[in-house]
């Protein structure tokens, strides 16, 4: 086994673990994502203590009850009169995993104290729980939409580049049409024929199709250029001379040449498409409140007051980077893997 394929395995299994943990979001998240704590808006991350005011050390971390400072909207202080140790497998809000209902959470503290690892938003909702639950929609939707856009793009781009002539002209002109049209209006039209309330599962499918359907044109152009060049390479011409079918030549000799572009596009498009959900939400096609998604969480921090006053609202954004980095690393390893195979 080569180093490249070992890497591919490592990254892929890490990603599988990540996606699996997303499935268990309800268990890992200490609170329900839509649970409002109206007396705790914009509370910063709860501090985990090991040492009491008396100086006594505890191995098990604990928190204090957080109460709002009288006369202010977003200032808080700790009530140090009693400590609330962090407990594991604690009972809390009900959730379902793959159809099974449960109410045990990985960790938590005894009420009325709260443990907000990433602080709260303006309704006093736990940002950490929302981040985990939001991943269920956003992560998968982003990957699927990018996959759809790319497969359409590869198919059509390869078609255009490989056959050339009028096929090329037709596909590329259609791509130009797709890049130029004011899609927002069509989205509005689509929205108006849909029922008012769209449940999250259907909203999810809708997101994926819309983004994927509109997004194929750019990758198609990139792929077409590569295919145009690749099909004239000596070994490809040789293979054709030996009577290889179009399909065989495409799959065996032409498409591997485009692996770098395709994988790079994939790594670039996934985060872009997760953000695209924000725009779609604006037109009523995204994930609606109170269901969290990375898109609507990121949209909420794009404000001057949040930027200057509530730094923890950016923790989800910062947490996203490692996830995307994983995807990038996998794409990278795959690229090297195919590069080795084709050379």
């Amino acid at each position, binding site marked *: 086994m080569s180093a490249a394929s070992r890497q591919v395995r490592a990254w892929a299994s890490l990603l599988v673990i990540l996606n699996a943990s997303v499935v268990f979001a309800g268990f890992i998240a200490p609170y329900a994502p*839509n649970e*409002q704590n109206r007396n705790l808006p914009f509370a910063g991350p709860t501090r985990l203590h090991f040492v009491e005011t008396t100086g006594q050390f505890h191995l098990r971390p604990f928190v204090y009850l957080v109460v709002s400072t009288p006369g202010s909207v977003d200032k808080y202080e700790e009530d140090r009169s009693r400590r609330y140790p962090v407990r594991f497998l604690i009972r809390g809000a009900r959730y379902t995993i793959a159809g099974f209902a449960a109410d045990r959470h990985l960790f938590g503290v005894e009420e009325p104290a709260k443990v907000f690892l990433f602080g709260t938003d303006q309704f006093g909702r736990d940002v950490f729980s929302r981040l985990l639950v939001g991943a269920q929609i956003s992560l998968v939707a982003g990957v699927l939409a990018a996959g759809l856009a790319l497969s359409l793009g590869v198919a059509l781009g390869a078609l255009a580049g490989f056959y050339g002539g009028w096929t090329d002209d037709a596909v590329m002109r259609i791509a130009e049409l797709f890049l130029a049209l004011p899609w927002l209006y069509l989205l509005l039209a689509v929205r*108006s024929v849909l029922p*008012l309330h769209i449940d999250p599962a259907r909203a999810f499918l809708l997101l994926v199709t819309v983004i994927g359907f509109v997004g194929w044109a750019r990758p198609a152009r990139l792929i077409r250029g590569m295919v145009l060049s690749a099909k004239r390479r000596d070994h490809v011409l040789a293979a054709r001379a030996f009577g290889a079918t179009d399909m065989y030549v495409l799959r065996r000799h032409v498409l591997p040449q485009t692996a770098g572009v395709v994988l790079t596009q994939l790594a670039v498009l996934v985060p872009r498409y997760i953000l695209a959900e924000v725009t779609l939400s*604006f037109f009523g096609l995204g994930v*609606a*409140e109170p269901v969290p998604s990375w898109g609507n969480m990121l949209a909420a921090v794009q*404000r*001057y007051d949040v930027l200057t006053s509530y730094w923890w609202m950016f923790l989800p954004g910062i947490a996203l980077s490692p996830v995307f980095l994983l995807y990038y690393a996998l794409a990278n390893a795959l690229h090297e893997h195919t590069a080795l195979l084709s050379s």
Partner: protein
Amino acid sequence: MKRVVERLLTPALLIAVACAAVAGAPQRAAVRAEDLLVSRAEIGRPGGQLVINQHAEPKTLNPVTAVDSVSGEVIKNTIADLIHVNRETQRAEPALAKAWTMSSDGRRYTVTLRQGLRFSDGDPFDADDVVFSFRVHLDEKAHSGQRDLLTIGGQPIAVRKIDQHTVQFDLAEPRAGAERLFDGVAILPRHLLERFHTEGRLADAWGLSTPAAQMAGLGPFRFKEYVPGERLVLERNPYYWKADRSGTRLPYLDRLVFMPVTSDDAQTMRFQSGEADIASKMTAASFDVLAKAGQAAPYKLVDLGAGLDYSFLFFNLNDLGSSKLPDTARKQGWFRQVAFRQAISLAIDREAIVRLVYRGHATPLWGHVPPGNKVWINRSIPQPARSLDRARQLLRAARFSSKPDGTLVDQRGDLVEFSIVTNAGNSERVQMATIIQDDLRQLGINVHVVTLELRALVDRLLKTHDYEACVLGLGNADGNPNTEMNVWLSSGATHLWSPEQSRPATPWEAEIDTLMRRQLTTLDPTARKRLYDKVQELVAQNLPFIFLVSPNVLVGADKGLGNFRPAVLDPHTLWNVEELFWRQKRSSGTP
């Protein structure tokens, strides 16, 4: 006959201004007497400019055809009206009219004009300009935004010139507070616009590309230049008809510079860094960010308290017929019950909306007249505190019941579930809907929040009626019930829960119709207030709108700006623009 005395003139002064004393005023008119209005505001210093941010670019400078609020913000500074509503006192005052009388039947107004006044291009102003202006505003083909207000009892106001300085207005039927109708009706220069009007091209006149020399008005400022996308500059009108107590002609400022700044946040930052001098209609978040600088800040912030805007939740009560929207029609069975609407109202945590959405800068509401409207509010409207228990009682009495898991079902066993639409661009409304959603979840009602783009939403509300409930807001421009006729009359186009009914659907809507029509023609202010109080009571009892909050008016200005007296009425900060002056300008000012 009742004589209305000019309020602002301390002694009714007739100053003959020696024009040499006033910078930029014409020499040839030196002998002419001018009926100047004397402002009682603090005496200021001439000079300087004011930079103002706008959410979008102005579209036109034509006071007749402008309908968008951004153009309106600019135009307001270039025009004057006969009678003006003082934004501070909320009362009608003489402006270009020196005085007016009303006949005892309330149908005839005789207005005496100030003499010797000039338009901003130096041309004299007289009764012919007034008659011309009203002819334009009332012309169907001119598409004036004022036309509907000036049509009374189905007939346009008849305007007649008595002499060079007297104009008579005849109304088809008596109209309470009719003098307020003159507010905002721009008096136009006949010498510049008559040609356009007779040729039917009025809409083409005074666009943004028109040379400044071809425009004139009676406002404190006049058009100077426009740079597409960047700025619009107004300069001081040297012929303006107000002066201060020392005889200096107003306005003090040399220039107003309007800059389009699309985003709220960029506006806040520009104000914070001194690149804009004044901020109106700030969001609560912006206000709080700016307030963090405390006393040391070079600007002053004012929370004026509740304004005239009010937000509300309402249900679709349209007659949907039988076929098209069966699901919504079924749910209307709940929506039409007053007890159901009352229960919803009782379950809503208005205090949380004030605190979480408006950071304390709002006032909870139970009726449609916000406390900012001091003249018309009915203070006896009950303000029941939030009570889930009472809400549950009401629902039980209306034969709703709870399932073991807490969800609410109606008498047929259908789950009580509906969606609230609101416009996506307005984050406050989306947040209010989110709070209501959580409030109603505690009653066992499953609410979906659906955000739609504004114009698509309007189609659903007024055309297709394909919605269940909606969170929206309305504003009352001058605090007077007459501007809200279309909201409360069952035949009105903005009778949002069920617009343009051919006959009132419910007895209480019929009663409101009668009361609103009666107050329109009742001249006695106390009798009129009583009628409107009753309207407020009926609305609060039947809750076609479930009122939420009235956002406070939040404004700010550079500390060096003198005579800055913001008001609850729009335009909050620039209503006395002619009196504003620079005490001193902060050093970091406009680059």
